[in-house]
């Protein structure tokens, strides 16, 4: 540490002594403001822990990426301090504030008296307390020393792991990548920069980061940093290990209030200040990242400047100016990524939003309005209007008059309204529009142009698109509209919900055509009008993604109705019913005994036989569910999926094994069908039946898929219903062997899974697409049947895992436990 500088002579008139702890941007700005207002009032002394003058900390990222140098980001060079007769003690750490003696004491033992004290100690990086966090090679990202350490590491190349996908972490990752390191970002949350961005913008950001060759791992909880004498990798709690030559921890900052706290100043999350930036001691002020003002701590630069103005005004003796908190705007300083966010963009009853998405150009804009005033802005891909929106936000400007065109920005001058065909326009020529007949966009557009087609029927005739199941009709019509402009009047499509103009079929086809593999991806690329969907579209999208990408798409349980999340049926009183699977309706003394034991052990009030030949345990408390399942699992029983949009039951009669009329082993076939199809997620529930003779004791002719056994084989019936609607099945075909039945069943299940609208039962789906279409693909076209069945079997390889056993083993355990019990006599910890 350098010896203390000699105190230069001060100009006359500087009678009061101001001491500043901290030489960062906040302190520097207070002094600038003070010199402007009352240059001769104070004798000023600064203690800075860093061995440097004041530099622009928010420009560290351009220094890291090589776009700027330290010299470029200096705010106050040495001359500035000398010119204003300010004493700067660089590299001197203050260790005590002696409020009674009105002086501060440094680590070297030097004491400096003050009349007014300004605390600007800033923040410290938060280091997550995992094993190995103190190993050499683990860096934070806060000051120039950190940047220099990163640059030194980057020179050797190798791999860097950045923990934290917030503003700082992403800037560090981009900087290290531009310096030639390979980089992995691990982020605890599902989307990047979740504090500043909504999931839609987070999705776009992730795409942009990944295109730079940076790996992004979200929902990643770091369990340990590995290495003996220096870091060599990171282990996540899912067991994955990532090798690393350096680890940069950028998970957040904490106000540095150690000194203030030790001095007995009122502290919360930071040093508490009032609207005049005064701490609980009227001679001590605090500004910057170390303070807590009205419950809020700030980590961005704009609020520091606002605070500095107020503090300087107060120090200068003028009254009246108050700091009332700041609305902050964020911009990511990574070259080539345009992103802007400001204000509060949560939804609410009193709020409205305006969303503009342009999938082709990767643009997402969202304004949140309250009482016709902007309260939040998120811009991605095109941020030029950010400051304009921010000014409207800060000024509280009433935007009623410009609402219609507001989202297009300041320079908007009467462009086209939002185009509903944008999603289709953005498709490539190779994108498949018609799945049944394998027709791509280029072929349809080409045929429309070359042959002068003007109607849907003509397109069907010339290209075969939309001529089978008709699911792609909406898309074909949009292509007609796109090609013919206003000359084409297409039939109205019923939208999925208020969040989109697209119908179920369009969305299904586009998910496949554009390879969309997450809910935020669908919402962005298909131009969703809301930021995160609603209870109508989210379960539907979750199902469409799950059925389109088996083994790839990760189920979003928060987009499922409670029954499929809790794997039991919710009852009117909030309890649940539990139905274990009984394959083909067959049970055993052992299973019945286990059910009886469970019913008694958990005081389950009602035990009832269902219409689908199962036993229902009603009135189970939610917190008991895992224990109930554990006991049922132990007796060999698994979930009966009585709660799911999935295969429910296969009802059977006893068949040739006992019945004197039986023609085939209907029970055995029912068990085989159930073993084959259980666990499959479908658009709506699926019920099956197998009857051993035309007397039809299993009521197969009102099932979604029903078998009537006859002497010469098996009649397959489909699309029956016996609920709100009652409808006898349609005859599909007759086959000779059990294996034929299974193949037709798999093919039907898959065709329904691929074409059915969410919450559309099989009988409604068949009515929509036509029985002949279904027959053609399942009965007449053998190759098509095989392929469908093959896709079904493949999907089943991921689906047939007992959800009860998974939860008994601990999955989603917090779903079933209360967070806490409070206010009871025997308070539990």
């Amino acid at each position, binding site marked *: 540490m350098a010896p203390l500088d000699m105190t230069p002579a001060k100009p006359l008139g500087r009678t009061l002594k101001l001491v500043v702890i901290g030489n960062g941007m906040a302190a520097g700005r207070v002094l600038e403001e003070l010199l402007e207002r009352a240059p001769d009032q104070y004798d000023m002394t600064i203690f800075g822990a860093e061995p440097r003058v004041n530099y622009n900390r928010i420009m560290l990222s351009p220094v890291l990426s090589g776009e700027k140098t330290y010299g470029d980001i200096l705010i106050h060079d040495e001359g500035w301090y000398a010119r204003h007769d300010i004493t700067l003690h660089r590299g001197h750490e203050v260790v005590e504030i002696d409020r009674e003696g009105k002086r501060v004491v440094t680590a070297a033992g030097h004491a400096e008296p003050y009349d007014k004290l300004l605390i600007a100690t800033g923040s410290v990086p938060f280091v997550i307390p995992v094993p190995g966090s103190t190993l050499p090679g683990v860096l934070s990202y806060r000051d120039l020393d950190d940047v220099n350490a990163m640059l030194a590491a980057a020179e050797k190349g190798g791999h860097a792991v950045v923990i934290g996908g917030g503003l700082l972490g992403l800037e560090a990752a981009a900087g290290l990548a531009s310096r030639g390191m390979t980089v992995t970002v691990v982020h605890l949350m599902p989307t990047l920069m979740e504090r500043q961005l909504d999931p839609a913008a987070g999705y776009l950001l992730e795409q942009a980061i990944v295109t730079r060759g940076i790996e992004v791992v979200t929902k990643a909880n770091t369990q340990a940093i590995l290495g003996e004498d220096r870091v060599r990798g990171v282990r996540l709690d899912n067991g994955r290990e990532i090798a690393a030559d350096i680890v940069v921890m950028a998970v957040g900052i904490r106000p540095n209030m150690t000194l203030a706290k030790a001095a007995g100043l009122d502290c919360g999350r930071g040093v508490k200040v009032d609207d005049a930036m005064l701490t609980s001691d009227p001679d001590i002020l605090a500004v910057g990242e170390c303070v807590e003002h009205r419950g809020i701590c700030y980590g961005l630069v704009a609020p520091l400047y606002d605070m500095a103005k107020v503090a300087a005004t107060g120090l200068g003796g003028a009254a009246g100016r108050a700091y009332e908190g700041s609305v902050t705007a964020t911009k990511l300083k990574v070259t080539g990524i345009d992103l802007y966010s400001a204000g509060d963009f949560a939804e609410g*009853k009193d709020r409205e939003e305006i969303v503009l998405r342009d999938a082709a150009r990767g643009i997402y804009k969202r304004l949140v309005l309250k009482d016709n005033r902007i309260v939040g802005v998120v811009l991605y891909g095109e941020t030029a209007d950010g400051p304009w929106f921010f000014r409207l936000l800060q000024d509280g400007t009433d935007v009623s008059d410009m609402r219609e065109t507001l989202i297009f920005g300041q320079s908007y001058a009467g462009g086209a309204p939002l185009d509903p065909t944008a999603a289709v326009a953005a498709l490539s020529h190779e994108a498949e529009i018609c799945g049944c007949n394998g027709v791509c966009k280029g072929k349809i557009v080409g045929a429309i142009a070359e042959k002068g087609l003007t109607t849907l029927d003509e397109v069907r005739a010339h290209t075969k698109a939309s001529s089978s199941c008709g699911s792609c009709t909406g898309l074909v019509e949009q292509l007609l509209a796109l090609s013919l402009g206003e000359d084409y009047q297409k039939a109205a499509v019923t939208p999925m919900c208020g969040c989109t103009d697209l119908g179920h079929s369009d969305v299904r086809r586009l998910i496949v055509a554009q390879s969309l593999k997450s809910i935020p991806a669908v919402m962005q690329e298909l131009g969703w009008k809301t*930021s995160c969907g609603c209870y109508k579209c989210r379960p539907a999208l979750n199902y469409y993604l799950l059925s389109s990408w088996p083994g790839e798409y990760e189920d979003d349980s928060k987009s499922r109705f409670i029954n499929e999340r809790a794997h039991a049926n919710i009852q009117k*009183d909030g309890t649940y019913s539990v139905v274990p699977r009984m394959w083909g309706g067959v049970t055993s003394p052992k299973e019945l005994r286990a059910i009886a034991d469970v019913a008694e052990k958990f005081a389950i009030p009602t035990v009832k036989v269902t219409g689908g030949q199962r036993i229902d345990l009603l009135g189970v408390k939610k917190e008991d569910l895992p224990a109930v399942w554990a006991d049922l699992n132990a007796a060999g029983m698994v979930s009966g999926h009585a709660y799911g949009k999935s295969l429910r039951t296969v009802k059977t009669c006893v068949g040739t094994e006992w019945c004197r009329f039986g023609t085939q082993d209907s029970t055995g076939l029912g068990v085989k069908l159930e073993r084959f199809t259980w666990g499959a997620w479908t658009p709506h529930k699926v019920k099956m039946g197998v009857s051993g003779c035309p007397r039809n004791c299993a009521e197969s002719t009102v099932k979604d898929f029903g078998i009537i056994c006859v002497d010469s084989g098996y009649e397959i019936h489909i699309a029956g219903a016996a609920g709100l609607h009652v409808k006898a099945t349609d005859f599909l075909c007759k086959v000779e062997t059990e294996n034929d039945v299974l193949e037709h069943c798999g093919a039907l299940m898959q065709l329904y899974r691929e074409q059915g609208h969410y919450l559309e039962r099989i009988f409604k789906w068949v009515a929509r697409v036509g029985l002949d279409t279904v027959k053609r693909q399942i009965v007449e076209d053998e190759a098509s049947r095989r392929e469908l069945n093959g896709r079904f079997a493949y999907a089943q390889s991921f689906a047939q895992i007992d959800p009860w056993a998974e939860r008994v083993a601990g999955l989603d355990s917090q779903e079933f436990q209360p967070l806490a019990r409070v206010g009871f006599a025997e308070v539990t910890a």
Partner: protein
Amino acid sequence: MNVAVTPVAERADWVEIGAAADIPYRGARIVQTPQGDVAIFRTMDDKFYAIDNHCPHRQGPLAQGIVMGDAVTCPLHSWVIDLKTGEAQGADHGCVKTYGLRVIEERLFLSFAQPTLVD
């Protein structure tokens, strides 16, 4: 838009109920009390709300519903309840009681006496 805040952690009317990380995003957990269950919600953008776990319609357990933005859909009959105000949205009418909830250093504090404070 900022609200003055009292040092919650030291006050008797605020009860610590657990860690912020214990509530899933777009999800909820319940706190059991002698007066009935309180549902603690966490939104996608990391806001927390505490409301009675009973839908004004047929007492459906709101903690079991789908969370969308700052609202939840009741699992029984799809009423949509605003988490900020507790009021039913759209054509439905009714209101759920809301409670004070604060997050302090990643810990959650619940108050039965305080109205909802929103950052």
